[in-house]
């Protein structure tokens, strides 16, 4: 007889189905006692342990993946901006409409001519972690930085991350000569466990006198990260990109996001 014949369900005789136990564990209105499943669970240690284990796993799940953040990801969209129409607006609005149409035609044509590799790709699935930079220059308060702005020796950078859920985090960079720099955590453990949501990571870095480009990577993982492995991964990605930072968009390691920054001389 094929061993597939032994693919029997796991349910032992006289015990509720897995579905019934899950409904009892997760439904707040399910009452112990009074209904057959509840009555059985109250008198059965094995099933009671199953229900308690399911509830404990749910608690751990919600700590890692908070409900508010999840719902926000799937519901929140940026509001549009609308303006009340009135009769006096008409001539200006008509001109604006023609102008907008002409501009749209130019933009669409430009995109068509630029080629597929500059198109926007939207990834479905879990929210992508986000990495942002905050700059403090000359003792000023740290403020969000546009990564296209040049940076200089002595500038102080802080990192802001947005995580869909609790994760181990490591921030490092490669410069245009392929040199690896570790940014966060600055020392000690090879990674730090951060909660989901938006936050500025502890610590800051002061930029040295290196002039050129630097690509800063944010690595996230549900499991601990090792610096040596990340160094190796980045080195391989750099080689695959022909030792060109700008090409590392295509070879960027999975589970990472990156920002390209430019360091110059004053």
């Amino acid at each position, binding site marked *: 007889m094929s061993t597939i014949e032994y693919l029997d369900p796991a349910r032992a005789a006289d015990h509720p189905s897995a579905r019934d136990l899950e409904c009892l564990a997760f*439904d707040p209105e399910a009452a112990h006692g009074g209904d057959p499943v509840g009555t059985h669970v109250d008198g059965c240690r094995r099933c009671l342990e199953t229900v308690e284990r399911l509830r404990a796993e749910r608690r751990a799940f919600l700590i890692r993946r908070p409900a508010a953040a999840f719902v926000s990801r799937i519901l929140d969209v940026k509001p549009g901006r609308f303006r009340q129409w009135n009769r006096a607006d008409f001539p200006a609005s008509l001109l604006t409409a023609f102008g907008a149409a002409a501009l749209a035609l130019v933009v669409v044509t430009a995109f068509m001519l630029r080629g597929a590799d500059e198109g926007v790709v939207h990834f479905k699935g879990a929210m992508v972690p986000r990495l942002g930079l905050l700059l403090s220059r000359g003792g000023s308060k740290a403020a969000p930085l546009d990564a296209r702005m040049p940076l200089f020796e002595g500038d102080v950078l802080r990192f802001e991350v947005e995580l869909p859920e609790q994760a181990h985090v490591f921030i490092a960079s490669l410069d245009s000569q392929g040199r690896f720099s570790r940014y966060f955590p600055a020392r000690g453990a090879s990674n730090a466990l951060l909660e989901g949501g938006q936050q500025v990571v502890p610590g800051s870095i002061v930029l040295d006198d290196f002039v050129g480009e630097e690509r800063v990577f944010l690595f996230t993982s549900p499991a601990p990260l090792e610096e040596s492995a990340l160094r190796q991964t980045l080195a391989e990605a750099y080689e695959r990109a022909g030792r060109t930072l700008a090409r590392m968009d295509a070879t960027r390691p999975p589970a990472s996001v990156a920002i390209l920054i430019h360091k110059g001389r004053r």
Partner: protein
Amino acid sequence: MPLSREKLQEYYALYGFAVRRRCERLLGCSSEADDALQDVFIRAHRYGETCRGETPLPWLYRIADHHCFEVLRKRRPVALQGDSVLGPRKHENLASLSSPERLRLVGQVLAACKEPLREVAVLYYVDEMTQEEVALVARCSRKTVKERLARFLETARSLLAASEVP
């Protein structure tokens, strides 16, 4: 009428874990389960009125099953993978497999099955319902449940044979 944000958040807090767990069992892939979890709750938000008069978890499970079946339908049919739980242990009694291993095997076979077999197989092997209970939920006769389970096992046999190294 879509579900309100508050209700959606409440449902996620109560049932999100269970839905994701189910999706991972059906799809056998953690990242696809994450995708599926979002899709299920997007549909739940959009079609909230279809839950009227029903406890939410079975309703969410139905949405999850249909979504996962759609994902499985788009996959290319494959033989059981080389690292399948059957591997070197295929001559052992599969009833001795742990529950996670058994579920993983079921997930692999589900990917190769046709739709009517999947629903019955999920209710029987994942939800651990009896054949009578499956017949009630799937709205078919017990005889039909038995036939579909037999065909599910036949599919598993074919996949096992295809994965064996001569």
